[in-house]
């Protein structure tokens, strides 16, 4: 039994829900993200948020998977602050939905001033509505700088409790600093550009398993919605205790996400 706390099922087929269920997935959370193209209007985001809060929970429930979501305008579409703020205005109406866990995945992409301005606006939105936060950190050469800018911005904002913020896509060069500053951290198991199951297991052996989770971030690009069970298998092959494997793939996400008061793992298959 496992939780995939970051996966973009809107980009995946129903077959993937079935495969994940067969592999033991009982719950997922799906952050709002960049669809691979820029949406042309705030209404496009309204439609997207409706899919995340209405369509995907039903699709997941067919296979006994509890579906939850996080809402935002992602940093890749934050370079136009006027447009981004129009999207932010429509988010509050969705926050009351039972499957919405908070604001995410917000963060930075290229570490620009406009991205940072909209990131800070999201932090204020989260604070105004007492929401938890899921943070995206930049890719590749931009990650270390962006991760530090993000943590500094949260600290300077001064309202959000780091224990209610998860900073995702950490790797070997960012994980220690994120944990030391009191945040939860996510390891994304992603071919080529993030972390392999083997490296994730290495990171647990070097940095421990407290406040860490693993996720697939499966989406429309090269990615693997079964990455979490594959990491569990890697840890099992190395001889790690079942309790350790369960901690990073079930207990930790359950502990963090249960702070929302909305997270559940008990959906019965509806099909």
């Amino acid at each position, binding site marked *: 039994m496992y939780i995939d706390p970051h996966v973009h099922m809107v980009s995946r087929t129903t077959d993937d829900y079935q495969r994940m269920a067969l592999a033991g997935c009982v719950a997922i959370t799906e952050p709002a993200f*960049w669809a691979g193209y820029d949406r042309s209007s705030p209404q496009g985001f309204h439609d997207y948020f409706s899919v995340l809060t209405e369509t995907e929970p039903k699709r997941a429930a067919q296979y006994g998977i509890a579906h939850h979501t996080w809402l935002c305008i992602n940093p*890749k579409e934050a*370079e136009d602050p006027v447009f981004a703020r129009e999207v932010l205005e429509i988010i509050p109406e969705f926050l009351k939905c039972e499957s919405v866990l908070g604001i995410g995945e917000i963060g930075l*992409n*290229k*570490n*620009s*001033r*406009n*991205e*940072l301005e909209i990131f800070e606006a999201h932090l204020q939105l989260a604070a105004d509505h007492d929401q938890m936060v899921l943070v995206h950190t*930049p*890719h*590749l*050469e*931009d*990650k*270390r*700088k962006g991760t*530090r*800018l993000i943590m500094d911005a949260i600290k300077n904002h001064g309202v959000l409790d780091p224990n209610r913020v998860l900073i995702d896509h950490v*790797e*070997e*060069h960012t994980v220690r600093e994120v944990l030391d500053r009191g945040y939860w951290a996510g390891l994304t198991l992603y071919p080529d*550009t993030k972390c392999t199951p*083997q*490296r994730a297991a*290495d990171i*647990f*052996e*070097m*940095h*421990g*398993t*407290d406040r860490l989770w693993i996720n697939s971030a499966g989406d429309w690009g090269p990615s693997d919605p079964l990455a979490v069970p594959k990491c569990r298998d890697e840890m099992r*092959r*190395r*001889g*790690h*205790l079942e309790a*350790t494997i369960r901690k990073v793939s079930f207990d930790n996400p359950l502990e963090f996400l249960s702070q929302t008061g909305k997270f559940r793992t008990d959906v019965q298959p509806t099909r």
Partner: protein
Amino acid sequence: MPSSPPPLPLSRSAVVDRYFLEHRAKVLDLAAFLDRVDRANPDAVGSKEDFRLTSLRGAIALLLDGEPERAKRILDLMSDPSTEPIAAAPMKGATGAWDGFKPASARDGENG
């Protein structure tokens, strides 16, 4: 109270037995990639080495220095070291390497 990291339960020989072939293949892929670059026609404009290759050669040097935390240090080497936000995002993607990286030999004699 924080829990201790779970130690790697495998012996050194078990690690080598389990992962050697996978990484033998990866080092051959890397060698073949560098050979492919050398065999390719030179670009029409400019002869300066691509910054991504310069960065990769720096990373390979780190593999052989015998020091720990190679993965972290390679990621650090390929990271943008600046600390201030940039004026505007020039693109959505990332290249995988910081375009200002210089190998240690090229940094010798620099001020600051």
